[in-house]
């Protein structure tokens, strides 16, 4: 399984070790792994954020993430990839997303990890609602993530 939605907290490093082991990526085939972990901040747009709720579209979100992983592996020539994304209530300091890409060499691993993350930000149906001291608000857009943005 390459994609998982999690309603509770997860340990990205433990998940990573498990995935590597399950997929035999720790036996000499993969020479490179690139990992991105996104964590909830306690501030955004100049305001403190106390909690966050991550809404998703059951069925479409999983399908979207699986399609992103599959097409990225094909396009980048990477060996394997793994995505975990939180849904529901989240507290500051908790990890929201893990993206890991495994490849023979570092170039493919870096490229695949970044490509999955950027496609997820652009296409995967998740919506953040932040709880601030001034009330709740829906986040209206994502920050640019590409190097040349």
């Amino acid at each position, binding site marked *: 399984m390459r994609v998982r939605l999690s309603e509770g907290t997860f340990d990205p490093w433990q998940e990573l070790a498990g995935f590597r082991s399950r997929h035999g990526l720790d036996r000499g085939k993969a020479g490179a792994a690139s990992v991105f972990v996104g964590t909830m901040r306690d501030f955004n747009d100049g305001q403190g954020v106390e909690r966050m709720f991550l*809404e998703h*579209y059951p*069925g*479409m979100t999983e399908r979207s993430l699986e399609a992103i992983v599959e097409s990225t592996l094909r396009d980048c020539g990477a060996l394997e990839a793994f995505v975990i994304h939180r849904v529901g209530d989240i507290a500051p300091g908790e990890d929201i*997303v893990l993206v890991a890409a495994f490849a023979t060499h570092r170039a493919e691993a870096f490229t695949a990890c970044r490509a999955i993350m950027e496609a997820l930000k652009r*296409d995967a149906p*998740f*919506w953040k609602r932040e709880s601030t001291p001034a009330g709740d608000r829906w986040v209206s857009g994502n920050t640019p993530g590409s190097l040349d943005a």
Partner: protein
Amino acid sequence: MVHVKFFAGLAEQVGFRETTLEAGEALDVAGVWQRVVGSERPSRLRCARNLEHCDFGEPVRDGDEIAFFPPVTGG
């Protein structure tokens, strides 16, 4: 029957999360919005047909699930 879903802040704006309508002839996604919501489409509105992103001109058939939502903000 066409199933129509709304998500996030958009669901709060339209006042409901789900509804259904009879699929008429030559119905497209823009027509679904028109029949269900009626007001002008928000400029950054996005839509999906049967769990895939689509354009507003996408044809809609009986049994389809159509979703409307704001730009996504995951990750």
